[in-house]
Structures are given as structure tokens and as C-alpha cells.
């Protein structure tokens, strides 16, 4: 296993090795027969409980920020979930399913926390907002395409999220730090998974190489948006609660560059899309994702599941 990039033990160096850091209480662990999480892993239910009981309350800014990260992860989970039962090998059904589950877990944590500012649950936020109210960047809603396109998207996402969460473990907002501390460990595996496939597809057959290059070219226009600062991130970075996206770019470029170099691939030379997802401007794809995701919940408003 040659994982490019270093600093995989970010959680150790930032003192959040104990991922329960920042979240007091143990949650209502007997509330559901199907909630079995070993050890003291941070669960979305714990965060929801913290929020309900007032132990954790995000500021309006932090809630907006958590909403952004939650939406990113949720939309990606929805995309990746489609691969389950359709992957090129059974091992990839398992791997992509696992990554989707990790992302969904992060989404649930971030959304549960964000909802604390507006008296909303994760499901209120996921199922009862419209397109322009979603704050995900456009990369996450891009269609799966073939396996190479999905890998290209995963490659960008996992290297971006790793750098983000690694730094976010040091957030002065204890709940953001705790969510990031759990997420960074999982995203590290996502990095490994995508980098391995970049190498395999680029160095496999002529066809796979052509498809890999095509996949990267399709996804690369959406890279820029990931690293755009705005008023919210500036304020939060200033306060030590969040990370200015632009500060992640150098490490992202260097580490993805190392993998691409090993794969003998160029960084795609394509024009950047303007983005705007953080302000509710989305591509045409998001509407379909939401239509499918929300249909049942909206058919029975107020119902419990």
C-alpha cells in the first residue's frame, strides 16, 4: 500500500485522539434496537441529544458552516449509494457502500448540529429544504458517470476533506472539532481508496487510462469552488472556529499532484466553473437528487419512520 501524502495521524497531533472530546454525556444509547456502535464513537444521535438538551448550541455562523459541510457529505452519500449493487466488483460494492455510509454519518452529525440553531432535526434539513437552500458545492452533485468519473470525484473530495477535517479538529467549537476528529480517520481511508484506483486505472489498460483522463477532466472544473473564501468562512476562521478554504489549496495541490505524477497523469488543464453552491446556486443535477431523496418523506409530512 503506497498511500501518497503524509500526516495521517492528525488526530494524534491535535489532541483529539479521544473522539468523544468536546461532546459530554453518553446519549440515549438504549433508544433504538438497531443502534449498535462500539466504544465511545461519536454518533449523530449523541449530537442531536446534546442539541436538544442545550449542552451544545451552535452560533448562527457555526450552524451555517455545519450546514455547508453536512450538505456536501449528504449529497455525496446520495450519489455513492447508487453504486451499491452496481459496482464493477463485489469488493467495490462494499467499498463504495462503506464510503457512502461514512459520508452519511458525517452529514447526519453536521446537520444535527446545524439544526440546533434553528430548532430543526437532521431530517427537517435533509428532506424539507429546496434546491436553493442547499449549501453544498457543485462537485458533490456531479453525476457518477462511469467508475473512472466516480473515482475522479472521490479523489478530489477525499483529498479536500482530509485537509479540511485535519485542521478542523483544532476548531474552538468543540462539536465541530469532535465531528472532524471522527471524520478525518474515515476520510483517510477514502483517500487511500481513490489514490489506489487512480494508479490502477491510469496504469492499467489503454481504455482505463483514457477513461481516467476523461473522468479527471470532467470533474476538475469544480475544484476551484472548494477553495473559495467568503464572509462566513473569514469570520469563522478569524474566530478560530473554522478553516479558510483557501488555506487548504497548497496541500491539496501538492498531495494530489504527487499521486497524479506517480500515475503519469497531468493536472487537467480545464477552465474552472464559477461555482456558487455555498449560496444556493447549483447545477441542473441537484434537483433530481432531491426529488428522489425527498419524495417519500414529503408524501407523508409529519410521519415518523
Amino acid at each position, binding site marked *: 500500500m503506497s498511500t501518497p501524502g503524509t500526516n495521517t495521524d492528525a488526530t494524534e497531533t491535535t489532541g483529539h485522539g479521544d473522539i468523544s472530546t468536546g461532546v459530554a454525556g453518553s446519549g440515549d444509547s438504549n433508544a433504538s434496537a438497531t443502534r449498535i456502535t462500539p466504544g465511545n464513537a461519536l454518533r449523530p444521535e449523541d449530537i442531536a441529544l446534546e442539541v436538544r438538551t442545550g449542552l451544545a448550541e451552535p452560533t448562527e455562523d457555526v450552524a451555517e458552516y455545519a450546514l455547508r459541510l453536512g450538505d456536501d457529505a449528504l449529497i455525496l452519500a446520495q450519489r455513492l*449509494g447508487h453504486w451499491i449493487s452496481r459496482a464493477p466488483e463485489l469488493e467495490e460494492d462494499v467499498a463504495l457502500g462503506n464510503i457512502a455510509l461514512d459520508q452519511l454519518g458525517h452529514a447526519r452529525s453536521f446537520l444535527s448540529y446545524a439544526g440546533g440553531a434553528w430548532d430543526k432535526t437532521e431530517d427537517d434539513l435533509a428532506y424539507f429544504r429546496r434546491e436553493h437552500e442547499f449549501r453544498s458545492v457543485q462537485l458533490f452533485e456531479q453525476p457518477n458517470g462511469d467508475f473512472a468519473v466516480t473515482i475522479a470525484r472521490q479523489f478530489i473530495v477525499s483529498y479536500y476533506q482530509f485537509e479540511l477535517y485535519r485542521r478542523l479538529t483544532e476548531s474552538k467549537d468543540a462539536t465541530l472539532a469532535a465531528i472532524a476528529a471522527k471524520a478525518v480517520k474515515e476520510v483517510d481511508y477514502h483517500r487511500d481508496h481513490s489514490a489506489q484506483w487512480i494508479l490502477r486505472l491510469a496504469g492499467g489498460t489503454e481504455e482505463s487510462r483514457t477513461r481516467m483522463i476523461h473522468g479527471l477532466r470532467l470533474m476538475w472544473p469544480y475544484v476551484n469552488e472548494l477553495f473559495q473564501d467568503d464572509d462566513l468562512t473569514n469570520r469563522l476562521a478569524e474566530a478560530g472556529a473554522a478553516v479558510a478554504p483557501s488555506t487548504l489549496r497548497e496541500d491539496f495541490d501538492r498531495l494530489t499532484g504527487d499521486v497524479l505524477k506517480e500515475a503519469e497523469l497531468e493536472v487537467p488543464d480545464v477552465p474552472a466553473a464559477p461555482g456558487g453552491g455555498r449560496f444556493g446556486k447549483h447545477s441542473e443535477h441537484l434537483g433530481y437528487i432531491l426529488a428522489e431523496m425527498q*419524495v*417519500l418523506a414529503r408524501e407523508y409530512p409529519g410521519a415518523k419512520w
Partner: protein
Amino acid sequence: MAAQNLQSVPAELSPEEEAEAQAHFDRVMAEDSRIEPKDWMPAAYRKTLLRQISQHAHSEIIGMQPEANWISRAPSLKRKAILMAKVQDEAGHGLYLYSAAETLGQTRDKMMDDLIAGKARYSSIFNYPALTWADMGAIGWLVDGAAICNQVPLCRASYGPYGRAMVRICKEESFHQRQGFEILLELSNGTPEQKQMAQDAVNRWYAPALMMFGPPDDDSPNSKQSMAWNIKRFSNDELRSRFVGMMVEQVRVLGLTLPDDQVRFNEDTRKWEHGPLDWHEFQEVLAGRGPCNAQRLERRRAAHDDGAWVREAAAAYAAKQSKKTKEYAA
């Protein structure tokens, strides 16, 4: 394939050696002990196991589809996470089982080809459509419930790799059944429309679930031999009866009913009985004429074909890497 080292290759034996090997096999059966991949085994035992284990693996893989159908529409994020984990488990079960089958001398590729070509069977239950969210509950509760009844005794199957795979699979299946029960319970206690949705799903999945145990005992020619080989421990009808007894208890807790007014406990035989099942329908579905047979196979074929270039790339890359390593070493 890692499993290749474990594969038992039938060696040429002299008549004396074969008699000795057969005696060893018979002793293992008599002691209710285990046969391992490198042990000698009768050709028919190998064939039976290979058929059963590969069918079981295929069922897990095809069985992913009706549930994957609801991942994108799950009505809460918690339910979405549970459903994703469950379908992912099924892929994992398929993998263990294909590996267990490979120890009998057949490659996963060959088994997959047979499945796609329509030459191999899988559980007929997965040829029924998952039409509403409540079907996620009914599949978990009834279909996984029936699977558990079938599979718990298989943990003691005489073939080691199969029995060991079943131990882990059964643990996860029990979680699957509970989540199905929980879905139905929530619906049953929800709005009248939700409760109706739950009852409708139970009505549709009940009979197909009972038929998962296979034909009645007097119409199940292979059962006797499988029991003599300690692969199967209880007859189809025995398992079906036990299952009905469990469901009768649980359906009350759910506040729903079973679509069968002939369910009763026979005090004389001390067994649960149920109403007549449509075995003609069972045979039809098995023969490929079920509601979703074509759709299920086509999805598997499409995933396999669309992914061919990925598997070829991975193989080519691995070969290049191994060549590089060799050159470096030399």
C-alpha cells in the same frame, strides 16, 4: 485468488486408498465432525455443497437489488444509513460464500458467469418487487427471518468453510431481521396510511417467505441425502413450521395480522400449521417466470459487463507491478 491454496483437488486414488478415504469420510459423518477442503470427499457431496453454497451466494448478491431500490428514497437519514449498511452486509455475505465455494474447486468468475447466463439458481423470493418503503420492513422481518431459521442450523454444517461462514452471516442476519421488525413497528404505530402500508407489505411477502424453505418434504428429493451428510439438519416442513410459530408471536407485537386464517398450533403433532401455499407459483418463479426475474438478472449482467474494463485494468496493473517487482529483485 487467495482461496486457491485451500482448494481441494481430487487426487487419483487407488481402489484401496479410495476405500480408506471413504471410510474416513463416513467416520467424520458418524461422529458429526467436520470435513475440510483438503480432505477427500465423495464427488456427490462436493457437487451438492458447491450447488448449495453458490446458490446461497447468488441469493445474497441478487438479494441486494430489491433493497438497493429504496436506498435513495429512505424516508429518514437514520433509515438510509441502516439500509445502506444492510445491503453492504449482503455483498459481504456473498463474498464469504463465494470464497467458501471456491474451496471446493470452482472459481468465483465461473460461478458469476453461470449466474448471469441463467444457469444457476438463487432464492426465488428476490424475484418479487419491493414496491413500498414497508417492503424494507417486511423483507427484513419475514425474508431475513426465514433465512435465519434456515441458516442457524447450517452453522453446524459438516463442511467446515460453509459452517464457519454461516456463523458470521447469522449474526448479521439477526440485526437485519431486527431492523425490519423495527421498520414495521414504527409504521404500524404511525398514521393509518403507514399502518396500511405495513399490512400490505406483510400480505405480499408472507407466502413467498414461507416458500423460501423449499417444497414440502414429500416433494423434496435431495433433502434426505443432505441430512445424511449433516449439511441439512431439519426438514423443510419442520423449519417452515417453526418459522410460522415465531411469526405468530411477533405479528401480535407489531399490531398487524398474517394473511393466513388457517395458522394454528396442532396439539397432537406439537407443530404449527399454515394454510395452503401456491407451489405452482413457486415453480413458475423458479423456472424464470416471476415478476422480476429478467430485471434482476439484467441488472447483475449490466453491472458485470459495465465493470469489465475496470477489472481488466486492475489485473493489467497488478501484472505490471509484479513484473516491475521481479525486475527490481533481479
